[in-house]
């Protein structure tokens, strides 16, 4: 699949730099503004405005868990680590806190634009994958409901294969997932006063 990087929506996007006042911050601010972003600084903790930010740049050298108003690895926006010391411990912490891309100090203009695009892409993909996994997990959890729905449909003197086929037809007709159709079948039966448990065995 060919991936297209979104370049257009960067104008006016908000970036917060979590770093003590430093030349690296000046260089980064200059470059982000040239790219078209609005830049804020914070240290040592991210203020409330961070929650509205589109990008967070954070110091990997002096950073610590308590700086972020969200659980480690759960940032609601792309995060870019500003790395000076490439010590494994610091890289580990950056990954744990949820870095989607990194910039090496001393920061010059080069690398900033690609870090922004790569971080956003990684964030988007991570988020899409998490949503997909949550959906799959939910559907897995509904396996029992599917079994119950098939059994209910089988009560109307159908074979298991026919009942299964009918449930699939219903899902398609209602334009919902197989598992959601099963939920409806079970709920409808319960509303009609039935208790499918009774018919077991």
């Amino acid at each position, binding site marked *: 699949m060919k991936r297209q990087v979104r370049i257009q929506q960067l104008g006016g996007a908000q970036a917060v730099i979590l770093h003590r006042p430093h030349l690296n911050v000046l260089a980064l601010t200059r470059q982000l503004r040239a790219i*078209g972003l609005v830049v804020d600084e914070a240290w040592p903790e991210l203020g409330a405005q961070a929650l509205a930010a589109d990008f967070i740049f954070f110091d990997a050298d002096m950073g610590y868990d308590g700086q972020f108003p969200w659980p480690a690895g759960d940032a609601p926006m792309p995060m870019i680590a500003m790395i000076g010391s490439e010590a494994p411990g610091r890289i580990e912490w950056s990954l744990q806190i949820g870095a989607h891309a990194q910039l090496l100090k001393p920061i010059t203009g080069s690398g900033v634009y690609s870090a922004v695009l790569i971080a956003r892409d990684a964030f988007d993909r991570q988020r899409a994958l998490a949503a997909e996994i949550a959906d799959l997990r939910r559907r897995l959890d509904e396996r029992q409901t599917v079994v119950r729905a098939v059994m209910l449909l089988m009560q109307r003197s159908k074979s298991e294969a026919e009942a299964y086929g009918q449930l699939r037809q219903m899902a398609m007709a209602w334009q919902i997932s197989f598992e959601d159709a099963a939920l409806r079948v079970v709920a409808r039966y319960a509303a009609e006063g039935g208790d499918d448990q009774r018919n077991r065995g």
Partner: protein
Amino acid sequence: MKRRIALGLLHSGSGSYALLSQASLIGARAAIAAVNADAAMPVHFTPVQRDPGGNADAYGPLCEEILRDSPARHVVGCVTSLSRKEVIPSLEKLGGTLWYPLPYEGFEASDRVVYTHACPNQHLLPLLDWALPAHGRRVYLTGSNYIWGWEINRLARMTIVQAGGAVLGERYLPIGAQDVERMIDEIRATCPDFVLNSLVGASSYAFLRAYHALGLTDPRFTPERCPMLSCNLTECELAPLGEAAEGLIAAGPYFRGSSGWPGAAEFGSSHEAASYAAVTELARLLAYHGAGSEDWPLAHLLAGAGGPIDPGTHHTRLPVIIAQVRDGAFKVIQHRGDVLGDPFLSRNLTTAALPLRVVS
């Protein structure tokens, strides 16, 4: 008493794109002469010239040589983006500034470079904005096989598809290659509404000659039916093209005789004009800030000094002009006023200068 200030010139006297670098050098030299002859200007430039001979890998070391062996902190030159990217590490290492006076593909804002020619919101996007309604939305893309061709065509493809058009083909040639038959065959087979040519130097000349020959035998490929468009063609390349230049359409900040360029001087092409402007603007900044400012970092030099260069991006406010070669010279088709360079296309500066039109 004038301050004598060394000024680096990094231009290739040979190689595939020598015509461009020579046009740029002519502009820079003319500006140096004008600055030096101007009694009211407290600055005298002493050129420090190096010739990379069209070899991209020679630019970095030669730029370093200028910055190391002479007092020059400012260098004018480079043609291709490849060469510009090669010199940026030298500039960072030795505290130099490059004044880059050629059109390029954008998406760069080095704090060591000033960009005095057009970027895509000043050439490609206005050109497509004019061409898509005027000629149609079925387009064939060509380019030289490096960042300029790739990025111009990527942006063109995005813009064309967003406008509901189609890219019928996209083909590249290595810099200097002249085997253009395949491109011509594909154009004949797909019959586009127009062709966007981002080839450079000898490849471009070979392609334009072959396309001109095709148009002589097949009326579907005349400039009226299927024009050839470019963001990098200027007067300095018309001579090797001869008859084949007739009908070519280009976007640029200056064409010979066009209006809107600051100052009264006449130039051979926009490459000359943008190089001339780079040197005169540097002289103005050095005069404005006074003695010692030639060693200042670029950010200080540009801060609060006014002028056409945006201190935020180091890109330049320039006229946006679309012109066509008629009877051997560019004639302006559309003058779209001045537009500030927007290298990351994040400020929507193109649309500000555009006339409103009905979207069909």
